[in-house]
């Protein structure tokens, strides 16, 4: 119990420093913290501390300490200015022009600079000295902050019980923030909320100022102005910008982005149909890419500058340079049209349809993974601990798989995480080529109208998925690398 109290007190002080967590803390524990704040104001010895400090400063002025310190500081500053006027630093500068040999103190501007510098340094020195003296004379007197005050209060059993009862949400919050990983995740999630609102704002604004007119594109050019006005009123497109934006925010946050302008179906229902298909394509291509690229990269790194290495890296470079849609067309030409092995159109429930999209999307990804695997393996393989492992007589396979690959995985995981977003977007092209009814091809069709609720929801939810994947990747780091784990723990 005592341990928990101490712990939470420390956590309280720590997270009170950052404004973001402080806001959460104050909001969640308002019932408890408000009375605590009143007590704090009453009991604060702050004023005493400040007046004592001022008294000591006056004492310095009276007994001549201030004058002595000022002399010392002035001598120091003048020496410094003199040095930099004619010192070696200026001669080293090629374009500084002729070196100024005149005494710098005659220069009015330099003199002013010196005065300023002296005053600043003097203030700092005196303040420091006063604080040291005060601590020596009366050690009990401290400058207690609110956080420290509450932290002290929490050490008392009764107050702590009150805190648990009245400030229960804040108590839970403190418990959560006491765990470094949960704290890190929480901070990232809060940041993500801001990013999601930012994305909503960005995409909505782009669609709002777009010269395209949805009513014109949907009703056709034969519709009368009255019909258009009616359409706009029905979907709220005639409202002012801020009201529409607010509605968009609300729709995204409540997972009810509204009805599609075209056809009037619920956007969420459509998304629920499309997302699994796209995610499946992405997952298959990711799995394919990792399965091919990581072994290829390791193989390349184990035999650097051999013929196989050159060949694999050349293939990887070509893989990076192939336009996805062109590659997809070639595959269709070969495997669907000529050989009739794979279907060229989407058939629900048939896993064969995912083969070609996975290959097309996996090509670019596996190329970058293979290159990254090779370079990071090459870096790791020459480190001392690998040599030690080999010298100890460990089998080569164990050295590579257990010792080298673990450390080499970090940049690889980064690349995969970063490319995931590109994959979600790259799926757009592959979906168009293979006519897969996924989120990407649906979005493109909606873009032309522009079907604001649909496009907004699609882009924002993709952005959320990408952000979550990036968060997972960052957490994976901590599992892979103890150094990063330690960094997160330190906060």
């Amino acid at each position, binding site marked *: 119990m005592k341990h928990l109290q101490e712990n939470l007190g420390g956590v309280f002080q720590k997270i009170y420093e950052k404004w973001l967590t402080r806001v959460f803390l104050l909001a969640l524990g308002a019932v408890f913290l408000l009375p605590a704040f009143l007590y704090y104001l009453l009991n604060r010895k702050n004023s005493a501390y400040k007046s004592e400090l001022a008294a000591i400063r006056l004492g310095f002025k009276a007994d001549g300490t201030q004058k002595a310190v000022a002399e010392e500081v002035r001598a120091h500053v003048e020496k410094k200015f003199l040095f930099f006027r004619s010192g070696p630093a200026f001669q080293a500068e090629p374009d500084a022009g002729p070196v100024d040999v005149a005494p710098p103190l005659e220069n009015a501007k330099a003199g002013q600079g010196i005065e300023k510098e002296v005053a600043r340094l003097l203030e700092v020195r005196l303040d420091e000295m006063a604080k040291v003296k005060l601590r020596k004379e009366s050690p009990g007197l401290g400058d207690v902050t609110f956080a420290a005050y509450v932290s002290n209060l929490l050490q008392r059993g009764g107050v702590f019980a009150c805190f648990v009862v009245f400030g229960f949400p804040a108590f839970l919050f403190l418990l959560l923030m006491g765990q470094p990983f949960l704290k890190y995740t929480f901070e990232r999630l809060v940041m993500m909320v801001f990013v999601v609102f930012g994305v909503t704002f*960005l995409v909505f604004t782009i*669609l709002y100022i777009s010269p395209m007119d949805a009513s014109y594109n949907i009703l056709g050019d034969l519709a009368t102005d009255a019909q258009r006005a009616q359409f706009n009123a029905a979907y709220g497109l005639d409202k002012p910008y801020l009201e529409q934006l607010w509605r968009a925010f609300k729709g995204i946050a409540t997972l009810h982005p509204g009805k599609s302008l075209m056809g009037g179906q619920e956007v969420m229902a459509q998304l629920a149909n499309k997302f699994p298909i796209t995610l499946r394509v992405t997952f298959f291509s990711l799995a394919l890419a990792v399965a091919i690229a990581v072994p290829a990269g390791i193989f390349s790194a184990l*035999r650097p500058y051999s013929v196989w290495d050159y060949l694999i890296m050349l293939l990887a470079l070509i893989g*990076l340079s192939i*336009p996805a849609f062109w590659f997809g067309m070639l595959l269709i030409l070969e495997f669907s049209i000529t050989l009739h092995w794979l279907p060229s159109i989407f058939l629900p429930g048939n896993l064969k349809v995912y083969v070609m999209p996975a290959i097309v999307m996996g090509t670019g990804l596996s190329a970058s993974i293979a290159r990254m695997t090779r370079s990071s393996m090459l870096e790791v393989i020459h480190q001392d601990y690998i040599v030690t492992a080999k010298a100890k007589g460990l089998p080569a396979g164990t050295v590579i798989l257990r010792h080298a690959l673990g450390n080499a995985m970090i940049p690889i995981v980064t690349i995969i995480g970063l490319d995931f977003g*590109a994959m979600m*977007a790259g799926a757009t092209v592959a979906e168009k080529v293979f006519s897969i009814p996924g989120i990407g091809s649906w979005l*493109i069709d909606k873009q032309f109208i522009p079907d604001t609720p649909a496009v907004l929801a699609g882009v924002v939810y*993709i952005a959320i998925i990408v952000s979550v994947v990036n968060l997972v990747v960052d957490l994976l780091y901590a599992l892979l690398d103890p150094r990063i784990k330690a960094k997160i723990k330190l906060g």
Partner: protein
Amino acid sequence: MDGGNVSVEKDMEQSMAGAGGGASPGMGGAADGPVVRNDGRAGFLKKQRDRRRRRFSELGALSISAGASLILALVIVMAGYDGKAHAFAIHGAAAAVAGLYLLAGLLSVALFFAARSQIDASDAIGRGVRLTGLALLPFAVCGNVFAAIAAFTLAVPDRTIEYRLAGFALLNNLTVMLIAAMNLFKEWVVWTYPTCMLLLAGTLGVYAAVIFVMVWVGKREKALTGMSDAATGHRAGGLPSPNAQAVSSGDTGGQVEGGVDGRTKAAFSYKKLIPLAILLILMAVVGNIFSLLLGLVIISKAANEGSRKIIGWLDALTRIYRNYMSVLGLFIIGILFTLALCSTFLFDYELATVNDYAHLLNPPSIAYPFGTDNLGRDVFTRVVFGTRVSFIVGLIVTAVPLVCGGLLGAMAGYYENRLDNVIMRILDVFFAVPSTLLAIAIVAAFGASLPNLIVALSIANIPVYARTMRAQVLVVTGSEFVEAAKACGRKPLAILLRHVIPNSLAPMIVRTSVSIGIAVLSTSALSYLGLGVDSRIPEWGNVLRVGSNYLETNPYLAIYPGIFIIVLVLAFNFLGDGLRDALDPKLK
């Protein structure tokens, strides 16, 4: 002096360790390791021989020439294979070209083995083999640039950077002329065609002369540096090839007479070459980047004559020239860039845009190398004009984010805390949306046109550049020389502009090359989706979009333009790899 020497020494150490390890039984466990180790003296001698061979880039050039020529010969033959009839139907001209490629390949193979045995025997390539190598040069006329590069590499023992640039400048214009020569088989050519071709032919003569001048200059410089070597034990700021260094520091006496010669001749000055440099820069107006580089090299050498300062970009250029693939990338970019600039004068824009109902969906022929599309437009001409759009989009879409993202990233990384937070949170929003999706959203909202496409791709690329720059600036700001500048009292802005940004540029430059390639890919992908350039404008994505509609009946409509995209993007990726190695401080 350079990375070559260091790596040679490192190899030596490794091979010694390998030989020692193999000899002592106690280290048996280590022999299972990734490095293949041979036993004892035989293994050491083999390593030594391999190392000696590796010093001669002639061997690499010859083997690539041999491989590429043979593969291309095979490709030309296979192109005549008719899948449906299961029979070969090769055009007479194609057969002749394939034969020439085969000949070049066989000659390269023969020269390769001859040169290798001479290197093994005497650590030098004899005059006979070098002169025979010149026989590979004429194959450039049938488009075999690999053979020509091998010939240039083999012809001169000590290849200075100027010599190589002059050689590539010549090959660049020659290849463009060859591509333009395909127009001779058409019914008509554009009226500027004869003038432009004659001018290009004239430049070929000038470049040929420049090559001889540069060989002479190289000999002169070598003689001079040999002299200064003898005098001071140092090498002046010149740029000898690794080969030259190997020979001069090695044990053979093959090049001694050059040094003796140099001692009797007067000092040579690059200042005399400045008129030539200006001429070269003027000739670069057709898009010949090698000519431009050569002119700049001469001028900067003239400006820095006498000082021993190493010129940063010259050093990087020399480093790039050590990597065959990155030079090849630069060469391909050079050819396509020249083609893009000259296309208006050499090719008929009407053939690419005006419908011709007499030639609908023609298969590839000598008049229409890539066939004609559904409106009778010449696909070859359309692809050539497509390079213009690709370069315009690629360059702008890289330059804008480079400057904007670079500045934002530099400010975010340098002025920590508040500004960093504001900039990075805003960029996080852009970063959360995949760049292709953002580009699609912008283009779809404002209509498909070239300016909109450029704006969309530029905005979508800014966050990546900003992040790269910020990360690099953070590293550089923490380094000691910045601390020293602060301690010396430099103003923060001056430190940022004079010290931090110049030292953070290397990863940005590498990214630039790769991102031009990505921009080319994105442009064509967006055009393919109908979100790029106006469909009438000849652009690679548009050409492919038409081709994709006739995939079943006329697949060649889609295949050839796709190969062009791959080649250009691949070239930028090769160059990017070369730049990365050249600018890597660890390898310097």
